């Protein structure tokens, strides 16, 4: 994973022809100029073609490496667990359909869990990259913008008013809550003069998130059953043992992934600033609306499936930006693949560390992801937003 980019020029130094990380602060420009090592061409002269090609090659290689890592994680996720099942038995279980104990474990527990991890991780990684792109804020993420809080409030309301328990009952509540709160953030961020500016979107998200969190806290303090449900839901887990749950969410997530990946060119234009994007012929309002729809569907589906493991959405885009550079056409696929890998690996470690019980994936994500992320941030070259 830690492919050293020390060879050649850092892909972060953007070329004038392909894309630009917004030079909102002169400091970031100065930094970047310092960071390109002597010998690198000045950033505003057009790069020779072979350098462009080598960068493209490196990114393609990165995608291939990530795909390989994802396959490996999936394999490990199916092979490793509380019960030691030898690989050949696992293979038999995958091709045969008898209901021995091993086959049940593989089919009913590990395979759905792996699929859920891939779906949730890729959705949240992509959604986080979209949020940071549209708000142009490195702190933006599913929980910062109040989307997971919306899902949480809906779940607590479901317990509080209807006495619903069990994941299948929650799924539409959390999905609906996430959609409604995403819509609210977007509407509030867009009303008023100037339309949906990044700062307005970010602050609307912060306000909505605080409001919903407060209401949730109040309900949880009133009602013990809600508290018990909520504190376990809040940690997040990909231990989905029901393929029905996955089938219900899958079409939404696929739609979200498509919409999200399709909004890459618009995001590249927006990263130059709204006026510049409009001058280049992009419909700014429309591309924002598509982006928010993608974010809402992705986060809503992922949270409905696994609870709020929103940390993936905050961190993965930064890691992806470190390896892929600021061009969203590369950054978005990197973030989706990276999110899936990170979730699966964190879940795997959580299963192995505390056998036969396990530590929830949300906690493990922070314990593994945060140190890795901090180490990355401490590197000499820092990819700015």
């Amino acid at each position, binding site marked *: 994973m830690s492919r050293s980019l020390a060879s050649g020029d850092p892909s972060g130094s953007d070329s004038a022809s392909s894309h630009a990380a917004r030079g909102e*602060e*002169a*400091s*970031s420009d*100065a*930094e970047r100029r310092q960071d390109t090592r002597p010998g690198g061409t000045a950033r505003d002269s057009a790069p020779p073609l072979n350098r462009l090609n080598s960068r493209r090659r490196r990114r393609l290689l990165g995608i291939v490496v990530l795909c390989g890592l994802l396959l490996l994680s999936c394999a490990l996720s199916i092979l490793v667990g509380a019960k030691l099942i030898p690989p050949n038995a696992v293979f038999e279980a995958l091709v045969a359909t008898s209901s021995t104990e091993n086959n049940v474990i593989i089919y009913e527990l590990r395979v759905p869990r792996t699929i859920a991890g891939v779906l949730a991780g890729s959705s949240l990684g992509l959604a986080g990259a979209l949020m940071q792109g549209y708000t142009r*804020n*490195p*702190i933006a993420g599913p929980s*910062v913008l109040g989307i997971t809080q919306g899902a949480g409030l809906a779940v607590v309301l479901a317990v509080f008013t209807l006495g619903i328990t069990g994941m299948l009952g929650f799924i539409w509540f959390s999905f609906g809550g996430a959609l409604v709160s995403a819509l609210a953030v977007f509407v*509030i961020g867009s*009303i*008023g*003069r*100037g339309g949906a500016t990044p*700062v*307005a979107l*970010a*602050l*609307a998200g*912060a*306000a*909505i998130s*605080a*409001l919903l*969190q*407060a*209401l949730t*806290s*109040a309900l*949880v*303090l*009133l009602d*013990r059953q809600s*508290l*018990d449900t909520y*504190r*376990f839901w*809040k*940690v997040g887990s990909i231990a989905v043992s029901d393929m029905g749950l996955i089938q219900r969410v899958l079409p939404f997530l696929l739609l979200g992934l498509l919409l999200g990946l399709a909004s890459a060119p618009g995001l590249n234009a927006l990263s130059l600033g709204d006026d510049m994007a409009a001058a280049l012929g992009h419909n700014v309002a429309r591309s924002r609306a598509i982006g928010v729809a993608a974010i809402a569907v992705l986060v809503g589906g992922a949270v409905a499936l696994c609870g709020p493991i929103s*940390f993936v959405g*905050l*961190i993965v885009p930064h890691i992806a930006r470190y390896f892929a550079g600021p061009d969203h056409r590369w950054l978005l696929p990197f973030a989706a693949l990276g999110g899936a890998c990170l979730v699966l690996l964190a879940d795997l470690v959580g299963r192995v560390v505390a056998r036969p019980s396990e*530590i*929830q994936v*949300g*906690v493990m*994500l*922070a*314990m593994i*992801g*945060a*140190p890795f*992320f*901090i180490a990355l*941030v*401490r590197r*000499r070259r*820092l990819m*700015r937003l």
Partner: protein
Amino acid sequence: MTESVRVPATAPAVRVRERKPLRIGPLSTVLRPRPLLVLLGGLVALVVVFACDLALGDYPISPLGVLRTLLGGGDAGERLVVLQLRLPRALTGLLVGAALGLSGAITQAVVRNPLASPDLLGVTSGAGAAATAVIVTSGTLGGISGAVAAFGLPLIALLGGVVTAVLVALLAYRGGVDSFRLVLVGIGMNALTVNATLWLLTIGETQDAGRAMVWLTGSLNARDWDNVVPVGLALLVLVPLTLLGCHALGALQFDDDTVRELGVRVNVARGALLLSAAVLASLATAAAGPIAFVALATPQIALRMAGVARPPLVASMVLGALLVVAADLISRTMFGSLQLPVGVVTAVLGAPYLIYLLVHRYREVHT
């Protein structure tokens, strides 16, 4: 804040309205009416709400009675209610709000990000994780319970907050304090501490988890003079210091090279300002639990009301205090026996107002 004046066609195109400078000896400044009005209005509202907080409750006392009691009169009952029950609680709220507002304003100005707040630097969640650990383990480990849980909790929370902030600063330090790097490290540390808290909540008993949840929502219940003194002292020391560092804050809005040319030691200024913000936030958290929304919202509200370019420090302090005291008043008096934690009410009060300001903005202000 500029205003073009209509001029005859022969004159040069646009003239900027001149402001009267205010000179006191060697000091000179420009008087801007709107920020001052916001500040004065906030102070008046704060005094009114604070008086109501002392007067209202299960045992209502007339405003005159409150004043009499504060000046040393009043009967024994009034004295007990005002001086021993309501005044410490209201003062704690006021000081905590002021500390949070100031701390948020500093953080947002230094990091130049409207979403930045001490919560982001992991300070609040570090304090929360430490306190939750004590609450959740006090029942099961038996050793630390009762007295330690009551007295040690603020101290442990303070330690947790400061240690987290120092860790963030150390991890972000690479030949200087780069604000962008600091934000990212803060996010990472914040995630670590938040998830540690969540994990602790799942391993605890429901009873303890409930107690921890109350604390984690931020509450002013049963606060006495012991809570007021440390926060008050810290504010007395830190507020003048940070206001002295205010001129550096203005310069820190530019990029690092420009700041150096202006003669500000970037790293020293940033480090000192952020450290004081962290200490303020930790103290506030120790005194009343993590009241999340105040530090984030009040600087942004103050900035929009005053129509200035970066969070105004004193106005943020006043508005923060106002928000927390008003929330305390509401949570004490409007829900009867159900004492909603103040942290719930601050968000319910503050968020709609911030939304209103967002919808009615005159122009986008970038911090």
